């Protein structure tokens, strides 16, 4: 009897338990119908950090308080710029929400500011993305509400005229709307946003730089940077991770003009949420982040080292500042990447520049002093070893069926002028040397007339050739078409 009672109680309890849990897991086909419970003040973070993931929390009424500050900051060493910011940073604070949240958004314009501003969040479904309801003068604030009905990573920016100028001065940031249940957890998450800046002075010019409207219209950027300034993510500011961890980067592009070709040197993106939406691409090297758009990239770190984040429109990375660093520590994995395994000497074809044969005249070069035969031999030998050796070999023997010999060469000895011409202009087509046919290409040698005289003297005075002393004036004559 007792046992029966006990099992009955257990049964009833389990029913109630399951009933309770089931009620929490309703699926909503239309995100607009997701109910919210309780209030929560949104945690806003400055780049490159992001707020805590939403995990499995229910949709809430989320209170976001965003302040606009116009303040001077450093663009690069010695150069400062007046930034207009959301929350005091460029890009602005990262807002993290989940689908179904009802956001109460208060935009405050600090009284010291000069200009009115507003905000357009791409996550908002409604006129202007909120811009019509948030136009606010300095010393005032405005509140409006919106519900996040689409998951994804979205840009927000100021939309007050002239819009380009407000965005160009740094008024952009990212708002993440996580799907039901949150994004899959990873070890490290970072917030990176690219922007282009237009200054009156050139890149690197010192002092306080003003915004240049004409350059912005011409899309001629002076600085293209991650997180608002050169070096925001390098050196001590680099983002970090450990071997074996998965890293997720929320990559935005505030523009105002340029599209980013985002790439991490030395890593491949295992997953890319293309344009911050729901399509997932895998095994991607470089992903496009549109101006006013975003992307989420994920990758697992396998080897240690410093991985460079760049906009692969490469002059922007190395000349305008679109460069960041991810410093990884941990155990090496020589199988995946071994580093230098072996070093050695390599003999290339020589220092002379190789060009295809052509007929045009080259410009005459400066005349130099006369040399003795011994001097010429020595100089010529040097030139030979640098320029001719690779094909004609150390003793002028050439390579059978490939390159004709210079040693005891009937072809060579028959016509000095022709030899000079070949060195000057190259030769293509079939020739017969010492009874053998050779049909190959000799590139013209970009060496000076004096060097040609020296090397030909050396060749003619070696290996049983006819001991002609080729002078520079002879070479000049051939060169000038005599």
């Amino acid at each position: 009897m007792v046992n029966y009672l006990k099992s009955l109680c257990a049964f009833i309890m389990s029913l109630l338990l399951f009933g309770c849990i089931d009620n929490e897991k309703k699926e909503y086909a239309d995100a607009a119908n997701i109910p919210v419970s309780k209030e929560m003040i949104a945690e806003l973070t400055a780049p490159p950090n992001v707020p805590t993931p939403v995990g499995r929390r229910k949709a809430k009424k989320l209170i976001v308080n965003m302040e606009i500050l116009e303040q001077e900051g450093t663009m690069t060493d010695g150069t400062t710029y007046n930034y207009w910011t959301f929350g005091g940073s460029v890009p602005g604070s990262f807002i993290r929400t989940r689908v179904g949240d009802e956001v109460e958004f208060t935009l405050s314009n600090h009284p010291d500011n000069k200009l009115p501003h507003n905000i357009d969040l791409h996550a908002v479904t409604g006129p202007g993305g909120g811009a019509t309801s948030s136009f606010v003068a300095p010393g005032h604030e405005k509140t409006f509400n919106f519900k996040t009905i689409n998951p994804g990573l979205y840009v927000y920016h100021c939309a007050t005229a002239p819009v380009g100028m407000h965005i160009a001065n740094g008024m952009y940031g990212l708002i993440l709307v996580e799907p039901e249940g949150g994004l899959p957890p990873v070890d490290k998450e970072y917030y990176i946003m690219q922007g282009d800046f237009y200054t009156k002075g050139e890149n690197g010019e010192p002092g306080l730089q003003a915004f240049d409207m004409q350059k912005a219209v011409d899309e001629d950027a002076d600085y293209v940077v991650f997180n608002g300034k050169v070096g925001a993510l390098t050196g001590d500011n680099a983002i970090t991770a450990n071997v074996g961890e998965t890293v997720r980067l929320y990559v935005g592009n505030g523009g105002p003009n340029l599209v980013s070709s985002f790439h991490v040197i030395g890593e491949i993106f295992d997953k890319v949420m293309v344009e911050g939406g729901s399509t997932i691409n895998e095994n991607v090297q470089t992903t496009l982040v549109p101006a006013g758009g975003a992307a989420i990239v994920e990758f697992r770190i396998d080897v240690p080292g410093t991985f460079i984040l760049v906009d692969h429109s490469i002059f922007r990375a190395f000349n305008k500042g679109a460069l960041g660093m991810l410093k990884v520590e941990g155990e090496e994995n020589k199988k995946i990447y071994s580093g230098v395994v072996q070093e050695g000497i390599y003999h290339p074809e020589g220092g002379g520049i190789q060009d295809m044969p052509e007929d045009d005249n080259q410009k005459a070069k400066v005349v130099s002093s006369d040399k003795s035969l011994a001097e010429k031999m020595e100089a010529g030998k040097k030139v030979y070893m640098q320029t001719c050796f690779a094909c004609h070999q150390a003793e002028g023997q050439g390579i059978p069926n490939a390159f004709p010999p210079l040693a005891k060469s009937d072809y060579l000895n028959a016509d000095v002028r022709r030899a000079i011409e070949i060195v000057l202009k190259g030769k293509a087509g079939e020739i017969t040397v010492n009874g053998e046919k050779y049909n190959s290409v000799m590139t013209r040698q970009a060496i000076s007339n004096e060097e040609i005289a020296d090397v030909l003297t050396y060749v003619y005075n070696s290996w049983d050739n006819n001991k002609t002393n080729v002078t520079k004036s002879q070479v000049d004559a051939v060169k000038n078409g005599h």
Partner: protein
Amino acid sequence: MQTIQRLTLYTFTLLFMLTGHCQSKMVAIKGGTYIPLYGRDSLKVTISDFEMDVYPVTNKAFLEFVLKYPKWQRSQVKKLFADGNYLIDWDSDTKLNQSQSLDAPVTNISWFAAKDYCECQGKRLATIDEWEYVAMANKTMPDARQLESYNKYILGWYEKPKTFNNAIGSTFKNYWNVYDLHGLVWEWTLDFNSVLVSGESRKDVDKDNNLFCGSAAVGATDLMNYAAFMRYAIRGSLKAKYAMKNLGFRCVKDIVE
């Protein structure tokens, strides 16, 4: 002899005090026609001759005003006419803050207060068209809007922080001998609420017949005139009872023939 001297001295001081207090220096502006940024169907606007204050109204002048008219003191002003930012930086109703200078332009005053101040002196606020007409001059030309250096100067000021603490007369004297129209503070105008921008600037280039009757006139005449754009944007964001740290005013007077 001595009494005459004394008398003249007294009358002069009296006159000086009177002029120093109630009437600030004004200059005559010769009227003309021009096309403003937001005009009337892109047509020219005609300005009649008028007089304009050389400088914006100072803290000193406004202090005298609230002493004379206590209804404009911070604790007594009606909420209809001024919001919470009205004279917020002053230490008390009748005392400035230590960091504020008597010669700096008065700011954090609402349109209603500015309007009343001008009216007490027999003057009025300038209309936007009048203000812009005088402001488009640089040091030597009455209309410098096409000059790059002129626009550069103004856009540069927009980025300079905290200019409201500078004394009047600290910027350049323009063609009309008027100072500080650029480079110091924004200024209230009589009809600032005729700027029909909704703040959603991407829409403001389109006719929004729903929000604004006759909004075909919303389009700006010169899209490259960013300096003027920003002034109109500020005007569009204001409400008459707002008080702003970077917003002051000056008065003008019609010339009665």
